[in-house]
């Protein structure tokens, strides 16, 4: 596991969540261009996030048909009111 530089850790996490903007975003891009360690840490975190999304996408809870029907009826009720 590659740890990013101490001062850029929080920026890397916010960057992979599309939550880093302005000065800090510009600074991180500048830092990444010269820091292989942070580039590696960023790539590993991006991959972890993608893996987690893939796992979530494959998780479709199995539900008995009558449960689905009950759920849909509930939605219908909310829709109509």
């Amino acid at each position, binding site marked *: 596991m590659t740890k990013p530089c101490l001062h850029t850790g929080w920026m890397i996490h916010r960057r992979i969540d599309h939550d880093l903007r302005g000065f800090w975003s510009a600074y991180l891009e500048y830092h990444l261009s010269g820091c292989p360690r942070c580039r590696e840490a960023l790539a590993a975190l991006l991959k972890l996030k993608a893996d987690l999304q893939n796992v979530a996408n494959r*998780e479709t*809870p199995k539900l008995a048909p009558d449960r689905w029907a009950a*759920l849909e009826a509930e939605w219908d009720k909310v829709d109509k009111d």
Partner: protein
Amino acid sequence: MLRFATRMAAGNADLASDWVQDALIQAYRSYLKLDPEPLEYFRAWMYQIIRHVAYRASGKDQRTQNVEDIDAVADSSAMAPSPFDELVGNEIDVRIRRALQALPETQRMCVVLVDMEQLDYEETSRVMGIPTGTVRSRLSRGRMKLQELLGPNFSPHQEYHS
């Protein structure tokens, strides 16, 4: 939402669907009271209600347990098969889910909500009832811990057939 509820229901999708129904009814009642907040933060609000319903149903009283307490308690289910293990037999998925189970509850919830359910920090903060700064720190700690648990050479594609 049902997926999130199922995770909270330890894999019991039928129980989860009851919770989703309860949450829906509860949400609709609040909506009728013309609480303006729900519509503005609809998704966060629905997840939050599910979380409350799930906690109430499983007998966990949130009021007596603050975030620090929850994190301090080592998860007794650590590394045990997670609720979804039997759902999909994929070895990689199983490894990732077990690693998730090993995280302290607040870290796991932040990772699940942000990385799996794709909520943003603000929404997660509302669902969890903790400040966004805390969401960010628990999330980054959770991710680092996951990387540690999954090991340096973890790669689903390489390990698929091993």
